[in-house]
């Protein structure tokens, strides 16, 4: 029986079957780096786009039928209705398969899941974005969101670091933000090359040099665990309290809705209670299991 | 196991690139017709053939597997086919113990110059597999 038959789906106690994905189409594929791609997608049932509410920082479960399902954040901003995007680095079986897709491919999507960034908490604050590698993806959604409501927020610092110049994601966005006079954009690489004229150094180190003020500020950090582990102490040194530090975490999330069990940090599930946390929420566990 | 007479077995051949694969090539170019039932996978050496390949082929529904390498003493890597021999011998006997018809796993030594032998072997193996019938080992209904 086809799934579109609502009466059939209503046989369940609850609303709909949360595990059943929507069908979405890949509309455009952008090569970010040699191993990272951004996919623009839209619902096959085009009407669903209008009904699809999401917040920056939320994620979805994307699946290729026959291969499997994995979580990725939505990397576009909810303020930009023309597109939905997610960004994937090629590291495992599903991400490899995603990279083999071409425009027009049909995949499964369920979501949005997770809490997203606390926009109300960020209003009238100075914002410090700290990102490493593909960790810029969720922050990018938030950054565009903030830029599209620029008057609600104060100063913006963006510190973005990658291993080498070839690893820079969203170069087209970086260019925009660099031009924007209301944003202090700092890009750094661990190791430069002949063409690189920007900074060289690890993110936490550069953050310490840039030394944004903690006064009326919130820092939002996302990147590989090793970067996060070293970034929080630097922020603390700069005067940020655990409540002023926000991060978004990545774990192996199979169900996305707090049931399958594997993404916990203590009693919190990253998929259900996160993926956005303040450092205050997770500091008891972070050095240990993240 | 009702089967119509039209049914043709499908088999996978893991052929060593230095000998049996060239042998198959030779059979083709010298028009020694061999059965179309065989799908050929080129491997660097018969020693590369992991028993997993064999099980995976059977799981995917192929009716048989042929592993073919260089004659003993002629391995491009000196010892690969000797090692293959131990592995394949154990696998064959063990699969038979599990209850898999021994005709479903076959092995041969075919050199690059033995195009004729390749035709003979694949013809014979195909015939045996036809006798063995379709592979329903992993079918779900009991």
């Amino acid at each position, binding site marked *: 029986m086809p799934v579109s038959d609502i009466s059939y789906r209503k046989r369940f106690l609850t609303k709909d079957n949360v595990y059943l994905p929507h069908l979405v189409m890949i509309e455009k594929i952008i090569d970010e780096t040699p191993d990272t791609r951004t996919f623009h997608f839209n619902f096959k049932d085009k009407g669903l786009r209008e009904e699809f509410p999401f917040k920056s920082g939320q994620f979805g479960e994307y699946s290729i039928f026959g291969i499997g399902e994995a979580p990725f954040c939505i990397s576009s901003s909810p303020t930009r209705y023309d597109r939905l995007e997610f960004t994937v680095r090629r590291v*495992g079986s599903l991400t490899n398969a995603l990279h083999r897709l071409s425009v027009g491919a049909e995949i499964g999507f369920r979501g949005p899941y997770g809490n997203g960034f606390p926009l109300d908490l960020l209003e009238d604050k100075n914002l410090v974005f700290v990102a490493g590698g593909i960790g810029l993806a969720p922050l990018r959604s938030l950054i565009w969101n903030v830029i599209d409501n620029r008057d609600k927020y104060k100063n913006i610092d963006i510190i973005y670091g990658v291993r080498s110049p070839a690893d820079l994601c969203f170069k087209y966005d970086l260019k925009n933000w660099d031009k924007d006079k209301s944003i202090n954009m700092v890009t750094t690489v661990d190791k430069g090359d002949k063409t690189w004229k920007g900074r060289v150094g690890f993110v936490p180190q550069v953050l310490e040099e840039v030394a944004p003020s903690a006064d009326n500020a919130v820092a939002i950090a996302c990147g590989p665990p090793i970067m996060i582990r070293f970034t929080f102490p630097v922020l603390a040194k700069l005067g940020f309290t655990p409540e002023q530090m926000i991060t978004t975490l990545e774990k192996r999330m199979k169900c996305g809705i707090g049931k399958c069990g594997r993404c916990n940090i203590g009693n919190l599930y990253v998929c259900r209670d996160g993926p956005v946390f303040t450092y205050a929420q997770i500091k008891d566990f972070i050095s240990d299991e993240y | 196991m009702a089967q119509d007479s039209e049914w043709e077995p499908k088999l996978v051949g893991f052929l060593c690139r230095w000998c049996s694969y060239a042998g198959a090539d030779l059979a083709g170019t010298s028009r020694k017709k061999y059965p179309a039932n065989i799908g050929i996978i080129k491997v660097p050496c018969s020693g590369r053939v992991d028993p997993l390949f064999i099980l995976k082929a059977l*799981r995917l529904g192929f009716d048989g597997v042929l592993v073919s390498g260089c004659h003993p003493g002629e391995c491009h890597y000196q*010892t690969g086919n000797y*090692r293959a021999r*131990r592995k394949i011998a154990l696998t064959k006997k063990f699969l038979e113990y*599990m209850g*898999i018809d021994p005709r479903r796993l*076959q092995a041969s030594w075919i050199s690059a110059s033995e195009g004729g032998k390749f035709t003979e072997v694949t013809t014979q193996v195909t015939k045996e597999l036809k006798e063995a019938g379709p592979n329903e*080992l992993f079918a779900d209904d009991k």
Partner: protein
Amino acid sequence: MTNREAEQRLRDEAKSLLESAKVDYIVGFADGSLKFHTTPLITRNKDDVDHLVINPFMASNLAKFLTELEGRVGIVAKGCDSRSIVSLVQDNKVSREKVVIVGIPCRGMINLSKIEQLAGKESDEIDDITRQGDKVVVKLDGSEKEIPVKEVLFDHCLACELPTPKEYDLLIDEPIPATPDEEASQAKINKLEELSHHERWRFWQNEFSRCIRCYACRNVCPACYCQRCFVEEAEPQWILSIPKWQDNLIFQIIRNIHLAGRCTDCGECERACPVNIPLRSLSKEMYDLVGELFRFKSGMEIDAAPLLTHYELEEAEDFFR
């Protein structure tokens, strides 16, 4: 030597190994928290060695822990365990110099499932089980029942070729000669061999439809030391993680092929299985095949080359075309 004397000697030796810093760890058996069970004791603390025991319930193969522990290890080993250690040394997974093998001559381990079947009660309901020579005395509801020991030993113990370790640093008691009863040990396998191919495959299909993929068989096995098992490979994914009988069966077939020349017939896989799959009927068959085809016995000769890295110029040719 009485059992108590042997136990005392074991504790003394273990203590002196730790005290003299000849080893970092002692690995042996202690009484378990359930009746008639032992549990592995892995310790660096010399006070713990007083918990070491010797009894007919030391079923585990402790060689399993050698590939996990760092440093020098003094390990209590029955004959079969010693074979696993030798096999690990051959495979370069364990360095002989880092292991002090404390050999325990073994008269066979008691299979509680067999006792339960004969007694019609589960082991926690039984009052006492003692071994007296060739008999096992089971006390139950105030009465005593004598059972010939051969009826309650593990199948693999019946076929034991090495009751006393051949490779050891210390031997705790007098060596015991081997008296393998291959026929009794082989009963289940012989029955299977009488079946047709089709019937045998159906038999295994049925057995493996119960498998829950807990991987206890793999994880208790000293020879299954791979850091990453093929079942966990994602690219390519050889088998699914769903416990369907087809994939369960492939897992077990390949596992046994991987263990050719490593399996010492210690029977741990079958003992650990929570759903009673006769796994030894697979591993013993492979063990015998290795012996028949290549005259190789795993873990017997420490200088032997591992089975699958070695070959003879002429062998196992008959089915090659």
